[in-house]
């Protein structure tokens, strides 16, 4: 327990230092923020074109898709803000042979890695997400009971756990292989499945996205909860997130044992 609270405090410290660093390069930060908001806006626009120029997504109205897009951007914002720097940090550490430094901290190294993920750049997607979500809220009647809010909180926490599990998996592979440019890309392409409502996919993919790799917790289920149409499989998805996180930690410990470090 004390390790967990220690790590949370460490996360806050990393966050403060990361903000201080971003403020040193103010021009880069401001332009990055503007570009991020603009680029984030392209996603909903493309979806709008796609929806209006084709038969759209079965079972989804344009306003509901707008809600989905708002939640997707919001998720990207939260994800990048909290853990956006993880991949870059780990790649940098392993590539330069500096990973040893993490093993000299009085915390589990994977905890330190997850604590170093804060990236202020994620604020662009977060703002864009809030904007699109508030637009969607005017067009769709949202179901906002205390039960729904509680479920939203649970699903968001599970989503964060799932993303942490993927980051741990990525880090485990990286400390073994050192160089893995295209594998990172593969991770991204697989995660792209989360950018669409799960129920538009064939049954086996739908099952995989709810139980196997439950990306559905990131955007699909939050949208379904707000539209009051979430099904019982949400619990399978939540449980799956916990199992995947546990498995990723097991794999990490195994890889760490075989870590060979870099030359002296």
């Amino acid at each position, binding site marked *: 327990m004390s390790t967990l609270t220690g790590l949370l*405090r460490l996360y806050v*410290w990393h966050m403060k*230092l990361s903000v201080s660093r971003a403020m040193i390069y103010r021009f880069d930060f401001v332009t990055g923020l503007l570009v991020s908001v603009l680029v984030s806006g392209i996603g909903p626009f493309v979806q709008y074109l796609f929806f209006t120029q084709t038969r759209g997504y079965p079972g989804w109205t344009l306003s509901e898709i707008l809600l989905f897009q708002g939640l997707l951007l919001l998720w990207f914002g939260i994800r990048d803000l909290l853990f956006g720097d993880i991949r870059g940090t780990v790649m940098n550490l392993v590539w330069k042979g500096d990973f*040893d*430094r993490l093993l000299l901290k*009085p915390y589990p190294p994977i905890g330190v890695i997850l604590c170093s993920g804060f990236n202020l750049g994620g604020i662009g997607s977060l703002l864009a997400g809030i904007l699109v979500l508030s637009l969607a809220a005017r067009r769709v009647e949202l179901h906002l009971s205390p039960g729904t809010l509680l479920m939203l909180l649970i699903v968001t926490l599970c989503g964060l756990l799932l993303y942490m599990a993927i980051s741990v998996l990525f880090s485990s592979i990286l400390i073994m292989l050192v160089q893995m440019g295209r594998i990172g890309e593969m991770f991204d392409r697989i995660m792209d499945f989360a950018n669409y409502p799960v129920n538009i996919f064939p049954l086996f993919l739908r099952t995989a996205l709810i139980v196997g790799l439950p990306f559905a917790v990131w955007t699909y289920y939050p949208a379904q909860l707000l539209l009051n149409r979430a099904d019982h499989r949400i619990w399978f998805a939540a449980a799956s997130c916990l199992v995947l996180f546990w498995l990723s930690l097991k794999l990490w410990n195994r890889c760490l044992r075989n870590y*060979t*470090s870099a*030359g*002296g």
Partner: protein
Amino acid sequence: MSEYMIEIQGLRKTFKKLNKKAGFFSAFGALFSRTSELVHSVDGIDLRVRKGEIRGLIGPNGAGKSTTIKIMSGILHPTEGTVSIMGYTPWLHREKYIRNLGVLFGQKSQLWWDLPPIDTFELNREMYRIPTDRFKRRLDRFVELLQIERVIYQPVRTLSLGERMKCELVCALLHEPSLIFLDEPTIGLDIVSKETIRQFIKQTNKELQTTFIITTHDLADLENLCDNVTIINKGSIVFDDAMGKLSTFFRNRKIIEVKFAEPVGEALLDGYDVIEFGGLNARIEVNVEDKDIKHHVYDILGRLPVVDINITNIPIEEVIKHIYTS
């Protein structure tokens, strides 16, 4: 409780090393089949270090020093052997053990590059849960000893190598560890910075009884700091004794340095092993096993116009070179 802070027995670490041949086709062929060999980076090391000791750990490049330090730090798991440091097995009790350990890798930085060192110090305060008043007291002391009052508020990227190294030392010592590993702490520094750092290490060792393990290629570090020295070569310990023993390593060999009143011919020194000759001076190595030093000195004084004569042991540098290559 054992009088030793570090006790290592039969330590071995074997790595699987891939063999790569030169050339494009060989590189392409490595996609399908690779050959590898087992390399014994550490090959049966036994080591004991007392509390409060400053121990030099030296050896040629690739001797196994860094691997030994990494196993002692808990970074690597050994293939074989036991390590007990302050009662901990580093790789098993890593998190608790690390709280009592400070590590400085001279060629790697733990400072945040864009921010002033004070921010990294504060992060370390949080990480090691150092009470604020103690942190402040220690920092003030270190800042005074290392003369870095202004430096700690400037971004790291604007600091000189010496200033950065002093700040790295502060990072390694802020939590007052009982044991500190310093890997080439004076690498690339000017004479003044080297001296400041050496004084700081001595002072800390004296005041807090901190044990230091120093790996270095700078003999002045050894001569100025270390009580004992361990030399590792090809994964094994080849010398493990007091620093003083290094200078008397070749007991039967001495160096005689002579200055002459007038230029002499080198032929007059025939029969001696002349290392250096300049007409007005000479440096001769003599073997004192068969004939004692008095015999050699009387012979030189009797035959040559000597104005000054000096007898010394074989320089430590030579001794170490001999040990490395033997």
